[in-house]
């Protein structure tokens, strides 16, 4: 038995939760549906007819796909596990609340990474070239974590029913999609919408993805990356704080 009980020890223990989540929640067809098909069709329904070049269109599709994949399942893991009493099992094990959240977040981010390959490969098929592939890679990695951390916040209310959580999640996610420069580039957004777009983490990844594809972006790539990191940290702190408060009332 390991004797260490530090942060690294807890991070290692969180990998057990990652594996569990991947087996139970993310290996199902529902993830493909929620992460690729549904946002894909919805995206295309908005994008077609706007005569957007593929260099503008495909980064938007990649962004929507990662955003929806990372925020689709993790918000409902807590209510499901609360209902099934498996959350009680986890809490009684030698793990902190943040360890459980980290596991859920990493599983969600990992799924986002895997699913993002589909629109990226599709982009290559339709002739898109990534002029800054490493920027795209860094963006996908960081935004997967960022969107997953954001999704954790949705699940903080102490309910054992996934329905209200899904509703809350949808209420936040949909408006974000429309203010993040996905369908209309940031430079063409009216000033009010542009101001609103600042509060959406999706804005910065979309902009970063356009830089990775076309070489140009509204904000400098480094700023986009730093803002995504900043959002991730803030989401993480808020999620841990809220769950620390509500977890004892849900087990």
């Amino acid at each position, binding site marked *: 038995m390991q004797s260490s009980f530090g942060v690294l020890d807890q991070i290692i223990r969180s990998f057990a939760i990652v594996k569990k989540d991947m087996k139970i929640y993310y290996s199902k067809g529902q993830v493909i549906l929620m992460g690729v098909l549904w946002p894909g069709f919805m995206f295309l329904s908005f994008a077609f007819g706007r005569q957007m070049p593929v260099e503008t269109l495909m980064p938007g599709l990649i962004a929507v796909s990662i955003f929806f994949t990372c925020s689709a399942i993790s918000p409902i893991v807590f209510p499901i596990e609360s209902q099934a009493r498996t959350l009680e099992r986890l809490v009684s094990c030698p793990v902190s609340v943040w360890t459980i959240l980290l596991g859920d977040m990493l599983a969600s981010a990992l799924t986002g990474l895997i699913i993002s390959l589909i629109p990226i490969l599709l982009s290559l098929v339709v002739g898109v070239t990534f002029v800054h592939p490493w920027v795209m890679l860094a963006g996908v990695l960081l935004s997967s974590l960022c969107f997953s951390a954001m999704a954790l916040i949705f699940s903080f209310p102490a309910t054992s029913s996934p329905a209200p959580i899904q509703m809350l999640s949808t209420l936040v996610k949909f408006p974000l999609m429309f203010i993040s420069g996905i369908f209309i580039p940031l430079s063409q957004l009216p000033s009010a919408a542009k101001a609103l777009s600042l509060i959406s983490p999706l804005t910065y990844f979309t902009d970063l993805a356009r830089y990775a594809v076309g070489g140009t972006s509204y904000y400098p790539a480094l700023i986009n990356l730093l803002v995504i990191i900043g959002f991730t940290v803030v989401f993480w702190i808020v999620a841990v704080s809220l769950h620390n408060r509500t977890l004892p009332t849900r*087990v």
Partner: protein
Amino acid sequence: MKNQGFALEVKDLTKVFGQLVAVDHVSFQVNQGEFFGFLGPNGAGKTTTIRMLTGIIRKNSGEAVVMGYPAGSIRAKQLSGVMPELSNAYLDLTAWGNLMLVRELYRMPANQAKERAVSLLQQLGLHERKDSLVSTYSMGMRKRLVLCMTILSNPQVLFLDEPTSGLDVQSVRFMRALLRNLKQEGKTIFLTTHNMDEAAEMCERVAIINHGKIVALDSPDKLSITAGRVYLVDVSFDKSVSLETLANLPGVNRLETAQAIEASDRLRAQQAMAGAGKPGGMGGGPGRTQPQMTVGSLAGTAQPGSPGEQRLVMAAGKIPGAEIVEEKKSDNRFRLYTDNTTLLVCSLVDFSRAHSLQMNILNVRPPSLEDAFVRLTEEKSHAK
């Protein structure tokens, strides 16, 4: 608090839910390697106490230490295993998957954990189904799997919340044998149960909690005698005897006939099988062990005024506090309750001599833990 060979040290532990004080300044200590029972009626605060000791919920005040570490801390959890009353295994994982999840959460070395998992699955009769999803398991199998998950990490302290409730007789026996083995291995076992026979048989000491407060804490034998007070004397004669005469013998507090004894024994057997105290199960609340009540509730034929029944309602008027006993029909076998066994046995001998009777059975049984439990929890309920 300092750990001085105690596996558990609890001082003034309190938990409040809104206006309800679920656990009210509870204090006790459990020695390392001790089999400790934590008994109480439904809603008394047993599970809430366990959940605080295992870090599942937070206390409002007081102190709780597990193996020298604050209850709920990572170190305390590493040394503990928790088996809740209801299965909390992942239904969408196999038994093996659940065990390997526990292995990783406790950071057990893979080889050691896998060997132990195989051994436990074999012992608990689940090895052949280890690759089946838990959702396909029966309730008993799930319970056994949860026990496997609980002891896989070789914890020093085991918290078992009604581990045998809802299990069939074979599983109950098996579970008890396994718990005895764990005790022999030196594990500290903190057990909650509604089954008084189980507690009396397994536990070295028991605490009885009622309305969130500990009302008694001692060995089952001592608790039975000091709190139960009333002894049971089973007697059988070779000829018919007058119930009234028998009830009026010096030393008899109360009397039961053969039918009531059978009903009472049947109740005990059902309790042992089904796990008492649950909705749909037998008993559960104070008063369930009152034999004169069981005649009415189980036999169904001794209700006052029921047709076709020979009934006799007697007042054991000679002894202060003697209770009215309902009778279905005369028989030669009786159970007498007394707080003075010497006086009663002498009375029975004199009675037999005077009526030229032979006693086929004369069996004196000390008061049971169940008697003590009912008395203690009833007293406190009435006092409240």
